[in-house]
């Protein structure tokens, strides 16, 4: 049996074993989960370095000429993505050992992680749309489980629900898109779709709509406007989860999907442009909001949003390699940042407000160092960080194709250092602003090592391009990035960073508040209103109709009519013989008259 299958099955097996048998023995459970992740990592490592393309199929169902497989598609794209997922996954598994050491739901947590690994693997290896959709949904569930891990508190639970439902809305579009594509190209497998594409291209509008519908899936998973609302809330989950799912991998699934169907985007230019714009706007919006957040994880969450915006934009600009490359680099340094944040939170007894921190630099040097590296990568310090290269590619693509988008991206590039430096200054510099923070101690090794492991690639990728080749990360072959792009990005970095230092050095509290920004432009309020008034109103209306009209008038009414008529009719039986004789006579007369009349 192909090792790739184990890639898929091991995590599932681990999850199943934990749920069914070992939930009592927490340590064992975690060991199983981590072991599975490790083996998966090794396998994916083993898969690297081959550049053939192979498909493994297993008949899931077959009706008439329609056959749906659970299939594995191994090509450069999936191999490299697999590598990313397993690597980050493994590291975070290990990190979790420390982070969740004393959690009573440890078994459940690790089962959830394994389930997630399984689902994510499924998406990455999917060979057809149905399979991708299946795991798409499963990823949603595992994130539901993990966000809601601390289910006795209300916020996480609400967040989990929100995440799942928002994703469901996206998936609605996704599924419709799948159906449309199927009817257009007559196939569900990516290869088949590619073959059927020329025929489908005859109906550009239909194709465009279909692609947009598919994109809805990405909007949901990758939390693009307008379905971004769930991601910040998802930070209620344990931090490693935020790192793994809501920063590195799952949210990137949307981008991966777009990369998978790059050929479709190419065929449906107008929708591609729209996609790019949505990406760009999301990037901008998120970056702006991030500047006013106080919760360390929320800041990172919004930065994730904006980075995802970058990727989507790149995908929309048909620069899928750029998108994938950024996805790859981002996965590492964003995971790094989150884990760092996690370490901080862990050390500060679950204090998340940066204004209550400060001066952590001294207590937690390792964390600080790695966090700084991560930040550097995120703000794309030129030539030394991986983030720089991937972002350059994107900006470059934007410049070469769409001026407006380029400038938007530039603004984002300016905002990013601004809020990151702000975070760094407020949290790590200055003096501690609360008792917890003063007593904060450096995290244990089991959490520290992962930070280091992640810090390496955040830098290294930039230097060993051979590594990139080997991992087969799709990335634009070397070309001189356009000088304007380069200058702009550097200026943006300096400007943003400088401005941040200017404002936030030695600050103990937010110097200025921009309410709409701090309140995320009231998206949540808007949606709450929509749900409460539109959906709720409709619901109560139909409930009323159901009770009064359908049941009340139609059903009960008929019954009453029948009974009433009977009640009246029986009055004929007056009980008086005279009347009876009369009626009998009438009966006879009527019968005869009828006979004559008819």
């Amino acid at each position, binding site marked *: 049996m192909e090792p790739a299958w184990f890639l898929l099955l091991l995590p599932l097996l681990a999850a199943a074993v934990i749920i069914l048998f070992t939930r009592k023995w927490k340590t064992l459970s975690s060991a199983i989960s981590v072991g599975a992740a490790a083996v998966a990592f090794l396998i994916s490592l083993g898969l690297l370095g081959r550049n053939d393309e192979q498909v493994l199929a297993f008949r899931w169902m077959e009706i008439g000429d329609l056959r749906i497989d659970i299939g594995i598609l191994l090509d450069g794209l999936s191999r490299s993505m697999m590598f990313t997922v397993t690597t980050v996954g493994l590291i975070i598994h290990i990190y979790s050992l420390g982070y969740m050491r004393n959690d009573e739901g440890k078994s459940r947590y690790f089962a959830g992680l394994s389930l997630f690994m399984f689902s994510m693997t499924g998406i990455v290896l999917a060979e057809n749309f149905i399979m991708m959709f299946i795991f798409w949904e499963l990823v949603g569930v595992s994130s539901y489980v993990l966000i809601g891990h601390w289910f006795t508190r209300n916020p996480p639970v609400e967040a989990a629900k929100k995440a799942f439902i928002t994703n469901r809305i996206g998936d609605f579009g996704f599924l419709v898109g799948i159906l449309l594509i199927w009817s257009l190209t007559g196939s569900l497998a990516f290869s088949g779709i590619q073959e059927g594409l020329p025929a489908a291209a005859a109906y550009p509008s239909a194709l465009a709509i279909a692609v947009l519908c598919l994109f809805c899936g990405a909007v949901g998973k990758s939390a693009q406007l307008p379905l971004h609302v769930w991601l910040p809330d998802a930070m209620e989950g344990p931090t490693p989860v935020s790192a793994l799912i809501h920063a590195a991998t799952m949210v990137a699934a949307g981008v991966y999907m777009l990369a998978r169907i790059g050929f479709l985007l190419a065929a449906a230019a107008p929708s591609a442009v729209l996609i790019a714009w949505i990406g760009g706007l999301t990037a901008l919006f998120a970056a702006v909001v991030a500047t006013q957040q106080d919760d360390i994880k929320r800041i990172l969450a919004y930065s994730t949003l904006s980075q995802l915006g970058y990727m989507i934009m790149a995908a929309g600009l048909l620069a899928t390699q750029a998108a994938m490359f950024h996805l790859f680099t981002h996965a590492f340094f964003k995971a790094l940042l989150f884990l760092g944040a996690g370490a901080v939170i862990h050390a500060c007894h679950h204090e998340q407000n940066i204004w209550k921190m400060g001066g952590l630099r001294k207590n937690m040097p390792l964390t600080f160092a790695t966090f700084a590296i991560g930040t550097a990568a995120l703000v794309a310090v030129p030539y030394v960080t991986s983030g720089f290269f991937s972002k350059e590619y994107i900006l470059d693509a934007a410049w070469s194709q769409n001026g407006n988008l380029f400038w938007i991206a530039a603004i984002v590039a300016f905002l990013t250092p601004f809020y990151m430096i702000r975070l760094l200054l407020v949290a790590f510099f200055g003096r501690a602003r609360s008792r917890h923070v003063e007593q904060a101690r450096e995290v244990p090794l089991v959490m520290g090592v992962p930070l280091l492991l992640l810090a390496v690639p955040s830098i290294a990728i930039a230097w060993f391009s051979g590594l990139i080749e080997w991992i087969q990360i799709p990335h634009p072959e070397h070309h001189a990035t356009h000088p304007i792009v380069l200058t702009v990005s550097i200026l943006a970095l300096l400007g943003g960073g400088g401005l941040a230092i200017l404002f936030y050095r030695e600050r103990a509290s937010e110097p200025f508040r921009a309410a709409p920004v701090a309140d995320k432009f009231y998206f949540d309020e808007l949606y709450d209103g929509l749900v409460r008034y539109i959906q709720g109103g409709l619901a109560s209306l139909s409930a009323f109709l159901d009770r009064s009209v359908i049941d009340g008038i139609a059903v009960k009414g008929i019954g009453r009519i029948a009974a009433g008529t009977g009640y009246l009719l029986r009055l004929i*039986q007056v*009980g008086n013989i005279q009347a009876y004789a009369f009626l009998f006579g009438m009966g006879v007369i009527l019968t005869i008259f009828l006979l004559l009349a008819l």
Partner: protein
Amino acid sequence: MPALNDYLFVSGLLFAIGLAGVILRRNIIIIFMSLELMLNGANLSLVAFSRYRLVNGLPDYNAQALVFFIITVAAAEVAVGLAIIVALYRARKTTHVEDINSMHY
């Protein structure tokens, strides 16, 4: 000699009178008499028919046999009926139809 429908008309009238009696009178015994009138009306038509529809020169005695049966049955009916009426009178001290409608609707 009168025509057939003269007889039929008379018998019909007799029948009608009986019917009217059944509907109008409230004394059960008289209602019962009216019923007898009706039967006799029927008898008259039967006899008339049998006389006007000769079979090989003679009245149709089948019809007359039927009349014979009807008379017998009527007599039996009267007997039973009156017995019931007596029983009723004993129980309720009335022969008036309006007094016996304990069951209705």
